[in-house]
């Protein structure tokens, strides 16, 4: 049951990405191209994706976290790290450069598995390799931040 629920939630998230247009790297890159604002080539759509997602999550979390526990677990698993250390600066900086190069972040890369053909598969291949490399390096480095993954 919990596995079926996670499938349905993944499907919902994927539908959101597709309907929002975020699954299209061209749209993402056109949003990230702030220098195109004066010439009219800027696509502001992604600001609306963020606004819609954050509004619903902000309100929904407040309702859900009032409960004693989630439906399929005994407790909530919220991230506990609070330190603003080097990793919380370096990781997102590297991530942002990669995102700006191709217009893919992990969710849209996954939706492109079925629709993006070989270019999407190549991106996913090195994306998982990069994830594995970071996990191995993190396991070897005595990290000041406890949880490796936001889980």
């Amino acid at each position, binding site marked *: 049951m919990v*596995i079926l*629920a*996670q499938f349905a*939630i*993944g499907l*919902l*998230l*994927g539908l*959101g*990405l*597709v*309907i*929002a*247009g975020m699954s299209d790297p061209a749209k993402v890159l*056109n949003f990230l*191209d*702030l*220098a*195109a604002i004066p010439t009219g080539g800027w696509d502001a*759509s992604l600001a*609306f994706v*963020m606004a*819609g*997602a*954050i*509004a619903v*999550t902000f309100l*929904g979390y407040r309702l859900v976290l009032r409960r004693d526990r*989630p439906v399929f677990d005994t407790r*909530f698993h919220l*991230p506990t*790290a*609070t330190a603003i250390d080097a990793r*919380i*600066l370096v990781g*997102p900086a590297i*991530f*942002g450069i*990669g*995102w700006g*190069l191709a217009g*893919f*972040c992990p*969710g849209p890369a996954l*939706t*492109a598995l*079925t629709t993006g053909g070989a*270019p999407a598969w*190549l*991106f996913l*291949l*090195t*994306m998982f390799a990069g994830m*594995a*490399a*970071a996990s191995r*390096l993190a396991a070897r480095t005595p990290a000041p931040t406890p949880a*490796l*993954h936001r*889980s």
Partner: protein
Amino acid sequence: MIATEFTPVASLLGGALIGAAAVALMAATGRIAGISGIAARLLPPYADSGLAGRVAFVLGIVLAPLLVGLATGTLPLPQIEASTPVLLLAGLLVGFGAVWGNGCTSGHGVCGLSRLSMRSVVATAVFMAAAFATVFVTRHLI
């Protein structure tokens, strides 16, 4: 560059669905809907028993465009501009950076900001700035 249409209504609606999924995952499993964290833990080592659920979650994301294609009769195709070497490099940076920074656009940008996590505010500001700068360099300087 490929011109794209400004779609405020569809984007707001899609964003709301993304938010609904994040809320549903918290309600169901008590966990943050961080796609990079969930995807990264499809790889070994498997420290817990949640693998089947993570596979199901990722499978749902992967199959979503096919459902849209079935419902509308038009498969939503991503328009990929980057060349093969750029895609390979970008994937590596996105994968490494997301795990090194404990999250990506979904985990920090949506869930973390909604929890008012200072780490996520910093992470989101940094990856947005890096992405804006990267597109400026690739589109307007080189």
